[in-house]
Structures are given as structure tokens and as C-alpha cells.
């Protein structure tokens, strides 16, 4: 029982981190049909800015810098690179984002080296005992930050502006015809996905330690999670990513630690064969 509770908590923590990236994917995908695989690398850069590059700066400054840089990378990469390509061929743009994430990883490897570096949690190394569950401060922080960010996302989408965003998701051309500046809204959504990516990177660092290619695997696993729930809606993408985190952690705890990555991709293949629109997705809601 104790192991089970422990694993569920760990799974939720892992899942929340995946879900931050998955939410970023879904926000962009529903608005543009584009999957930005570089969100993982943006998370990695956010982590390096927080834990490795600038140790002399105060923590709050490093965190803010990580967020700002991630926003800028998000917005600039869309405005200057992906958009033009996406208009002609979406698949090329998606592959381009994957290539860009490898470029970012190599860039960081050249500056900081390829050896994984430890990262100290901003929340300290303390552990709390709640009944039979013992949970680190950092894990608690992951859950709290996740809940706050997902709640904020829900608020944005329920607001007046959110109604225009939802209208845009459903019929972009018509929304533009009504006077909604859809290009500007998309830029705003890229900025939003940048915040989520930076948060994922800052929260992952102390758990996995920092390495240049950590973002690449984070990007892929979060994508599998989003697909598992359904990429066509933000809520289902988030739930899918959390489910995948739970599944992976339970599998690692009870079956095999070595095959956890294999499991993730087995899930991926299974979902694509059985339910391409995700466990919760209805076929009509997913634009392909």
C-alpha cells in the first residue's frame, strides 16, 4: 500500500511535468495545427538558465530570465521560421521544430558540456510526511505550480478573450472575418506555451539533473501523453500526459525500471493504432 501511494505521488509529479509541455503543444496545435517539438528544448534552456549558466544572479532573476527567454524563443521561432513553412507544408514545419530542438541542445552542449549537471531545487531538499506518504518539497512544488498554471490556463480560456480564442480554434478564417486579429492571438499563444515550457524545465532540473538532450526526450514523451489523451483539446492533452506519467511510474515501480522508455513508445504505437484521436478524443474534434 505504501509503495503504491508513493508511486502514485511520483507518477503525478512526473505526469505534471509532461503535462506542462503537453498543454503547450495543445494550445498551439488547436490554434494553428502545428506541433512545436522545440518546447522540450526551450524547457532545457530554461533549466540551464536557472541552474547552470548564471549562478551569481539571485534565483528570482534567473527564473524570470528563463521564462522571458523561453517566451522570446517561442515567439521568434514562429514569427521568423515556422510560420512561413507551416503555411505551405505543416509537416515540414513540425520536422523543422524537431531539428531546431537538436540545434538548441547542441548549442548548450558546446557551452556547458555534455555531462549531466546536478540542479538544486529552489524549494530545498526537505521532505514532508503526510500520513503514509513522504513527499519532497520539490515534488509538492511541482504539483502546486502545475495546478496554478493549469487553473490560470482554464481562466484565460473562459474569459471574454478566451471566447474569441475558442471561436478561432473552431473557424480561424471566420474569426478573422469578424475582426479578431488571429495572427496576434497566435503570437500570444506561442508566448503562453513558452511560459509552460520554461516552467517544465525549471521543475525538471532537480529531478533529472541537467543535460543538453533532456529536452528532446521530454518533448517526445509529452507528445505521446498528449496524443494518449487527445491533442485536439487542451484538457485532454493535459490529462493524457498525467496518465502517461502515472503509467510510466507504476510500470517502473512494479515491473521494470529498465523498460520504462520502451513502455512509453509501446503506448504511443498502441494509441496510434487503436485510438488515433486519443482516449477521450472524438474523431471529429481532431484536425489532421
Amino acid at each position: 500500500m505504501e509503495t503504491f501511494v508513493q508511486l502514485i505521488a511520483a507518477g503525478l509529479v512526473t505526469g505534471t511535468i509532461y503535462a506542462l509541455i503537453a498543454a503547450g503543444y495543445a494550445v498551439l496545435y488547436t490554434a494553428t495545427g502545428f506541433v512545436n517539438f522545440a518546447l522540450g528544448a526551450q524547457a532545457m534552456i530554461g533549466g540551464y538558465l536557472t541552474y547552470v549558466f548564471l549562478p551569481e544572479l539571485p534565483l528570482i532573476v534567473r527564473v524570470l530570465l528563463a521564462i522571458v527567454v523561453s517566451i522570446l524563443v517561442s515567439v521568434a521561432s514562429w514569427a521568423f521560421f515556422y510560420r512561413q513553412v507551416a503555411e505551405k507544408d505543416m509537416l515540414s514545419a513540425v520536422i523543422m521544430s524537431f531539428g531546431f530542438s537538436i540545434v538548441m541542445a547542441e548549442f548548450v552542449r558546446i557551452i556547458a558540456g555534455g555531462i549531466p549537471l546536478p540542479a538544486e531545487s529552489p524549494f530545498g531538499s526537505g521532505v514532508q510526511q503526510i500520513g503514509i506518504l513522504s513527499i519532497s518539497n520539490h515534488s509538492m512544488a511541482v504539483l502546486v505550480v502545475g495546478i496554478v498554471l493549469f487553473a490560470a490556463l482554464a481562466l484565460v480560456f473562459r474569459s471574454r478573450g478566451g471566447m474569441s480564442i475558442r471561436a478561432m480554434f473552431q473557424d480561424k478564417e471566420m474569426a478573422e472575418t469578424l475582426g479578431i486579429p488571429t495572427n496576434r492571438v497566435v503570437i500570444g499563444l506561442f508566448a503562453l506555451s513558452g511560459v509552460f515550457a520554461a516552467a517544465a524545465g525549471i521543475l525538471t532540473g532537480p529531478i533529472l539533473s541537467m543535460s543538453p538532450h533532456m529536452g528532446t526526450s521530454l518533448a517526445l514523451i509529452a507528445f505521446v501523453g498528449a496524443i494518449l489523451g487527445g491533442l485536439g483539446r487542451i484538457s485532454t492533452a493535459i490529462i493524457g500526459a498525467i496518465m502517461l506519467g502515472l503509467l510510466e511510474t507504476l510500470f517502473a515501480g512494479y515491473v521494470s525500471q529498465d523498460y520504462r522508455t520502451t513502455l512509453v513508445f509501446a503506448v504511443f504505437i498502441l494509441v496510434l493504432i487503436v485510438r488515433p484521436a486519443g482516449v477521450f478524443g472524438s474523431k471529429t474534434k481532431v484536425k489532421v
Partner: protein
Amino acid sequence: MLELKNARIGYGPVSVVHDLTISVGASEAVFLVGPNGAGKSTTLRGIIGHNPLLGGSITWEGKDISKLAPHERARLGIALVPEGRHVFPQLSVLENLEVAARVGPNTRVKERIESIFDRFPRLAGRRSQQAGLLSGGEQQMLAIGRALVQEPRLLVIDELSLGLAPVIYQQVGESVRDLARDGLSVLLVEQNAVLAMKICSRGYLLSRGTAVLEGTVEELKTKSEMRELYLGGLGKGN
């Protein structure tokens, strides 16, 4: 108010509309008729800004608007009832109207929406229903209501009568005509030439991407091309 001069509009490099010159004056209702594929919808898409102008000019009150994005043209007061309705399927009826009402000057939103419900009582009874679940005719009413709630200066309509029962489109046609009398400019693409002639005072016949006939309703009624093409059986008795 709106003027197209020698306009060339198309898809990518392919032009579908050539050398088209049309205008809509202030508080004037003008129709565009023509066979399927003549380029009526393409012309409207060019005016709205979804298709680029490949040649000629489009002006609004004398100013070139051909470089403006569609949302900027909307803010000048141009509203569209598109071909195929294009309501937001997963928003409710009320939300569809609200999205449109709040884009421009964010004032009297409730009042403007209620006036749409007064005009279309069928929609009033379904205000919280998902728009995608409305019947085709109800969606058409919503598309018209969504354009009117913006209080546009020019209403551009692609197929007013499509999907509406005769009683309803007569009624909607009358509202459009009344609005035009009250000062709204209208550019109407309509399959039903009889209806178009009841609503508008002037019109153009489009064929293969260019205007082959133009004139007031009285003038056009005497032209054999119009009679043959459109009035046919329907026109007898009018």
C-alpha cells in the same frame, strides 16, 4: 463607399475574377448574380481580404484597403455572411453573437444581441444551444444575426436564401431591405434573382469572372440575358 476597379482576384497565382469593376454606394443595396463558378464568392473573398488582389484596386471611402488584413477591414465596418454559414459549431448561439458583438466597440452588447433575438425569434428560444446542432436554416439566421450584431456599414452576403424556407427568406429579405432603407449598404450574392431584385435597387451579372451586365433593377428586368438565365419559370408573374 466600396469600389472595385479592374480587380483581378484569384487563388495563389491563378486568377478567377478578371477586370471586374463594381461599386456599392452609401445606403445602397446591390446584387451580384451569375452562374455557378462565375466568381461571385471569390469576389466577396477578395473584398473581405481572404484572397489577395492580383491587379486593379479595392477602395473603401476612397482609401485603398487591398493591403489590409481581414480583421482590419472588419473594423472599418464590413461584415460578411459567408457561403456555407460558418457558425462556430461548439459555441452556443448566444456566444456566437457575443463573440461578434464584442470585437468592435464593446458597448450596448446586451441590447445589440437582444435586437437580433427580436429579429429572429427562433434563435431566441435556442440561445444556449450549441450552434453546430442548429438546423441549416437556423444556422443561416445565426450567420446573418452574427453579421448584423456588429452593426456594420456594409453587409456582404453570400447566398442569403440558401437553406431557408421561402417564408423565412422572404422575411429575412424584407429585413435586409429595411436595413438598407435605414442606411446600411448591402452587397448581395444570390441564386434567387427574383429575391435579389426585390431587396436591391441595382445589380451586376457576372460570368466567367467579369461583369457582363449592370444596371438598375428596372433596366436589368428588360434584358434577355437576365430573363433567360435567372427568371425563367420563377420570373413569370412578377
